[in-house]
Every structure is written in structure tokens, then in C-alpha cells.
């Protein structure tokens, strides 16, 4: 495995959303991806989008327990970014051929599929939460995402006590689950 020990540490940091690790990987790979995109019909904004999505793929990869990166992070990032950009180009019918240096890549199809699947699920959750409206959206986010305590939430949202806030949160949760699973089950059967 051509994986340097400090890359392993970096990836462990990445998996924990450690800012220092994210910054190091960002710094070392951004320019490379940016040149790839700009050399192939993209803008600086496209480059940022594609690079950040690539980072998410790497993040997911680092977090999956069975993480085995058989190449340098740089090679992996290049491969994923290239694949994502090709997909976007094809999508907007801007280009239909090959781009970049095909010899410098590793197969990432499996990870891409995984990523697309997750992306759809995240999108479902995002839409479900957004469609809740306030105060439900705020309550759900405060408890399940920001992981605040019921006491703090009661204070922030002006409920008389934590018990009231909790009841309200559950009412919201029932609605959220209904919306989410309706899409989830649909999305899964007619993908």
C-alpha cells in the first residue's frame, strides 16, 4: 500500500471533521483540481463546487470503517474530481469525450455510486426538514443536528419548560418521519 503514515493520520483527522486536516488536504490538492476544471471548460466556481464534492467523497471514504486507500490521496482526489466533472459536463452536454490524464487515475466507480446514493438520501432529508416550517425545523435541527439539550432548547424557543419543548419536538418528529419515509420508500422503489 503506497500510503504514507502521515496520510493515514490526515485521513483519520478528516473522518473526524478536524479543521487542520481538512485544511492540509485542501491546500495540497485544490490547485490541481482547479487546473483540471479550468483546462476543461470550467470556471473557478465550478472548480470550487467539484473540489468540495470530491472532499465529501473522500470524507465518506475515510469514515467508512473498511477504509483502504490503495493510492496516494492526491491520485484519489484527482480520480474522483475528474469523474465528477465528466459527469457534470455530460449532464450539461458541454462535452462528451475524455478529459485529463487517464493514466493518473484509479477506479472510483464503486465509491461514486455510494456517493450518489448518499447524496440522494441527504437531499431527501434536507427537503423533508425544510418542508417542516418553523418552529419544527428549528426544533429538529437544534436537537438532532446541533445536539442541544432540551433545557437549552426550551430556553431558546421560549417554552415554559423542557417537557413542553420535548412534546413539541416529538410532534414535529412524527411529521418529519412521515415526510421522509414517504420519499425514502418511493425513492428506493422507482430509482
Amino acid at each position, binding site marked *: *500500500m503506497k500510503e504514507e503514515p502521515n496520510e493515514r493520520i490526515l485521513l483519520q483527522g478528516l473522518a473526524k*471533521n478536524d*479543521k487542520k486536516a481538512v485544511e492540509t488536504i485542501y491546500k495540497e490538492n*485544490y490547485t490541481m483540481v482547479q487546473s483540471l476544471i479550468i483546462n476543461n471548460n470550467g470556471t*473557478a466556481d465550478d472548480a470550487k463546487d467539484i473540489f*468540495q464534492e470530491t*472532499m465529501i467523497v473522500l470524507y465518506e471514504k475515510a469514515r467508512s470503517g473498511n477504509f*483502504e486507500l490503495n493510492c496516494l490521496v492526491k491520485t484519489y482526489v484527482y480520480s474522483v474530481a475528474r469523474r465528477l466533472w465528466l459527469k457534470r459536463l455530460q449532464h450539461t452536454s458541454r462535452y462528451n469525450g475524455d478529459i485529463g490524464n487517464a493514466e493518473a487515475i*484509479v477506479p472510483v466507480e464503486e465509491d461514486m455510486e455510494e456517493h450518489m446514493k448518499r447524496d440522494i438520501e441527504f437531499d431527501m432529508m434536507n427537503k423533508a426538514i425544510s418542508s417542516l416550517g418553523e418552529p419544527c425545523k428549528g426544533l429538529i435541527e437544534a436537537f438532532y443536528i446541533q445536539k442541544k439539550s432540551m433545557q437549552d432548547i426550551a430556553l431558546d424557543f421560549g417554552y415554559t419548560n423542557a417537557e413542553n419543548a420535548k412534546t413539541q419536538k416529538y410532534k414535529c418528529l412524527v411529521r418529519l418521519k412521515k415526510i421522509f419515509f414517504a420519499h425514502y420508500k418511493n425513492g428506493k422503489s422507482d430509482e
Partner: protein
Amino acid sequence: MNENNDIMILDAIERYIRGEMNPDERLHFENLRKTNSEIDQLVVEHTLFLQQVNRFGEWEKFRNTLNEVHTDLSEQGKIHSDKLEGKAKVVYMWSRYKRVALIAASIAGITAISLSALVNSVAPHPKDPKLQELVAKFDILDNNQRVLNQKIENVDKNSQKNIIPSPVRYNGTGFLIDGKGLMITNAHVVKNSRNIYVQNNKGEQFRAIVLKLDIPRDVAIVKIDDDRFKPITVLPYSIRKASSDIAESIFTLGFPRDEIVYGEGYLSARTGFNGDTLSCQISVDANPGNSGGPIFNRSGEVIGILSAKEAQTEGAVFAVQSKYIFQAVDELKKNSIYKNVKISSKSTLNGLDHVQQVKRIEDFIFMVKGD
């Protein structure tokens, strides 16, 4: 159920999943879960939901970090994204200009524009051969597995005695992993047999040989060795390399009797009997004869091999995780005859309903018989 009731149940389930119950309450709830399948289903569903919310939250936080880092690095001048400089700027300008030129060109009917001089290349890094990690052998687990296997074998032998008066001693299930007749089953299905036959759903029977036995993990690779077997170009399902998530819905196909039988359930724990890390626990109806059968997720990927049934708990079945199929095949590849073996890695079943999936899969699932 009225709304207050719903909320009380949801509250109990959520505290149960988050581990916030005291031991007594927990015991009580676990009993309720065992006896009430509706509650059990709700627990599974809510676990899945919490998993999704959590991942979503972490993903959002990671995106925030990315944006912060991007802003920081731009401000420090360590990346140049807003104001491009030097070569990057030239290329950027050129690529903008080029788009205008392309429009003009298409109007004028001119098409050829070459970019080759400006292509940046990134040097490829040669890959070293993958390091193989040694997996420790757990003797105790190994024994547990053997005892369980023995039990199943006994049950199986008994049931066989009454039905089939043939010399066939043992039945199990196996499934193809490539188009050329390579098949996976449990080691305990074939380890004591001299002659092995596999039979498909149409009743066609083929001779097979054992290529590899991994008794600790209970995986066997069998090859159909019969001229009447016609290779298949591509299998509809794939073998999953990554591990699977709890509460993921699954289905099985196997030969508990002379006909192929379908079963449905979900992945209930990532580890197997007594915390055995080689296997995982699933909830599905299984009988002796299902041993060695594939476990599919809803995308049509094989996530495990059905392997043993715990005696006391109804609905608890264990499975060998699919990644050990890859390990067994990697071992097999060390033999030069098999070095080109390719496991099916692309499922074409994603998005189909189970009826359609089973229709396309069933031809590749075999009954494994030995004597």
C-alpha cells in the same frame, strides 16, 4: 393509537436506541420488543431514521468546515480561486474566450479547436502491491461455529432421512460469483463430502468440485466441473465489498426444500453469535438447507452468506459477511490457474422490485448436495 400514545412510544423507542434507559426499563422494553413485532419494526425504522439524521448533520457540519477552510485559505493566499494569477489566469481567460469562440465557430461552420498545448498533467503514482492484513484466528468462536454447524447438520440429516431415500447426505445452498461456474457456499455444507452435485431451480444437476475451504469463516469456493454447464456472460447481481448498515432490508434465496424459497428480513446486528466479528446477524426465516445461500440487499448486492441459526431465538440467523468472499477468492487467485478470476462487481438489479430481482437471480442459485 392516539397522538399522546404515539409520542410515548416514540419517546421510549428513542431513549432505548440512545441508551438512555435504566437497566430495568431496558429489560422490560426488550421483552416488549420480542413479543410485539410492531414495536420491533418501529425500533428498526427509527434506528434507520436516526442514522440518516445523524449522517445528514455530520455532512452539513463538514460542508461548513469546507467553506470556512476555503475562505481562510483564499484570504491567506494559499489557494487562488477568486483572483486567478499567472498561468491559471491565462488558461481561465482563454477558456472563457474559447466558449465565445466556439459559438462563433459553430455559426461560421468551423469546428476544430485544439486545447492540447495547455493541458496540465499530473504525474501518475505507481501503486505498490496491496498489503495483506493478517486476520487473527478466534479459536473459541471457531468452536462455537462448529457446534452450531454440527447442530444444523444433525437437524438436516434427520430431516433428510425421512424425505429422500437417496445416498445424498447433505443439502445446502450455493450461488455463482462469476459466469464461469465459480460458486460460494458454506464450508460446513461441503467439507465432509466426497462427491458434490449442484442443482438449479429447473432441476438440472451438475458435478462440482471444492476449490477452497475456509473452515473458520465457514466459506467454501466450489466450481461447477461439468461440460453441460454453459458459462454465463454476466451475473445480474454483485458481491458487496463494504459492510452494511443495521436495519438495512435484505432478502434471501435458498433451498430449504426441493424448491427455491424466498425470505425477507433486515440486518439486525453487525456482529454474529457471541459478538463474532466475522459474521453479522440478520432477521429472516431460515431453515437447514438455507446454509450457504446468498443474502441480498435491496440494490441486489450480496452482503453475506447465510450460515447458522441460533437455537433459542426465533428469527435470529447469522451470516458470514460478504467481504470474506473476496478474501477467499484472493487466496484462490494465488494459484496461477485462477489468477484471472473476476467476481461479479456490478449489480443490474438496482431499482427493480423484489419480484423482478428474484426472477433474474434465481437461475444462479443452486442446491448443493454431497455424499
